[in-house]
């Protein structure tokens, strides 16, 4: 058996109590929602917290409120299965429902939460291994080592952002509510992530992500495309979220965000600039797609060869835009060729 290291477990019923426990124990404590990311990492001894604070008992973290007109607020402990099936999200924030529905597999979607997926640890072939394996290698920069085996000359960790939902949340211009002993603060989803494999979140250890606030949909259509080897289980090795608002034949607003490459989800601002305000044509879409090639950084630390993932970024952007425009596409958003054509 691959067992968890021992710890003390708290299951507070209120956010205030959870915050207090975190404040009392400092860096020895970690929060857990669904457990599908933290517990495997603990079994591999990537984390060995002395205190675990379970958020599952906190009722207000399980709520979904609002609608497309006023905006929708989702509690951090709402499961990915619930997000993927919720009528208001399915109807108006379709890209988010799809991203949540493409995470891992059905069992993990019943356990894993939206808050947990937004905070999911960055991943790397040299990091997501058992203690035995990492010890044999001599460890890596992200945990217990001094050198990054992916880029030995580099001073930073290149582990890859692996959340499916973050690119969509950023494309939707969502806001996150964080609660700590110092009170609460709202942070734009795009400011929540850092381009560093180790310190990948702009979140203090004593802050708890409690809510995801989606703004009114305001004519935006959203989608998410995911590249992975298998149609289930796998983390994204490329994810593309697109939010598009049209005004007649013109593009009123567009957001294009990648995941699964780089250490943080990346907004493709250059590509967006090419499209905003313009009349949308196949040629323009082609130019927009090519503009994402350069900023996408894929290194040899996940599944598939890096150049393939980089080359697929423009392809996915093109397909995602075509899908939102209602133009024909021959593939399905999980990367497989559709039988229906």
């Amino acid at each position: 058996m691959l067992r968890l290291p021992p710890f003390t477990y708290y299951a507070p019923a209120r956010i205030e109590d959870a915050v207090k426990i975190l404040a009392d124990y400092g860096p020895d404590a970690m929060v857990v929602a669904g457990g599908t990311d933290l517990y495997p990492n603990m079994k591999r001894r990537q984390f060995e917290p002395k205190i675990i604070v379970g958020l599952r008992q906190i009722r207000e973290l399980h709520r979904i409120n609002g609608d497309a007109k006023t905006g929708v607020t989702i509690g951090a402990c709402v499961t990915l299965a619930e997000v993927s099936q919720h009528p208001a999200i399915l109807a108006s924030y379709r890209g988010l429902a799809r991203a949540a529905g493409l995470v891992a597999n059905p069992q993990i979607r019943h356990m894993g939460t939206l808050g947990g997926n937004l905070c999911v640890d960055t991943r790397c072939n040299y990091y997501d291994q058992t203690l035995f394996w990492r010890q044999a290698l001599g460890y890596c920069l992200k945990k217990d080592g001094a050198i990054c085996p992916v880029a030995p000359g580099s001073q930073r960790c290149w582990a890859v952002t692996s959340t499916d939902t973050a690119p969509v949340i950023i494309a939707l211009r969502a806001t996150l509510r964080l609660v700590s002993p110092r009170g609460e603060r709202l942070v734009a989803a795009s400011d929540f992530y850092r381009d560093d494999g180790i310190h990948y979140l702009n979140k203090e250890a004593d802050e708890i992500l409690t809510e995801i606030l989606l703004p009114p949909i305001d004519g935006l259509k959203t989608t998410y495309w995911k590249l992975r080897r298998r149609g289930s289980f796998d983390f994204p090795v490329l994810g593309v979220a697109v939010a598009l608002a049209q005004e007649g034949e013109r593009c009123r607003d567009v957001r294009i965000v990648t995941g699964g490459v780089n250490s943080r989800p990346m907004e493709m601002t250059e590509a967006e600039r090419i499209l905003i305000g313009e009349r949308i044509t196949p040629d323009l879409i082609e130019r927009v797609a090519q503009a994402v090639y350069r900023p996408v950084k894929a290194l040899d630390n996940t599944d598939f060869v890096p150049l393939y993932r980089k080359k697929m970024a423009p392809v996915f952007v093109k397909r995602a835009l075509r899908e939102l425009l209602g133009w024909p596409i021959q593939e399905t958003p999980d990367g497989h060729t559709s039988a229906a054509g």
Partner: protein
Amino acid sequence: MDKQLITLRVNGEVHELAIPVHKTLLEVLREDLHLTGTKHGCELGECGTCTVLVDGQPVLSCLALAVEWQHRDIVTVEGLADGPRPHPLQQAFAELGAAQCGYCIPGTLLTAKALLDHNPRPTRQEIKEALSGNLCRCTGYIKIIEAVERAAQRMAAQTAFAESAAR
């Protein structure tokens, strides 16, 4: 080591146990309740063989802390049969040879039961999607999918018969 008194409801039976808090539901089921029908595979959420049902939904017992799932309805493969009568899914799996080495089958049966309880007439695509979190290294899945289809047909027929008898 912190031990905690917990109450688990498994296959309709209530158990009170004193266990270390860091034990997973999988470990408690197998080692404390001796319900070894639930198998341990990767123990990292990458295979699905440890699947059990909690309140009718499939979850991975290897990633569930037993203390977190108290007072919920947990069903393991031992709770599937109705006394000496196998569940229609078990019957169909046996008839069609859907279990080869059998290791993934407890988890697969429970995931399939959750599907049929929520969707009694699934399409083949829906069966594939529902079972996409249960890896099988023997069958190539065809027999498993066919067995779920056969069980669905029988269960639907039984339901129709029971409904007409009740009228």
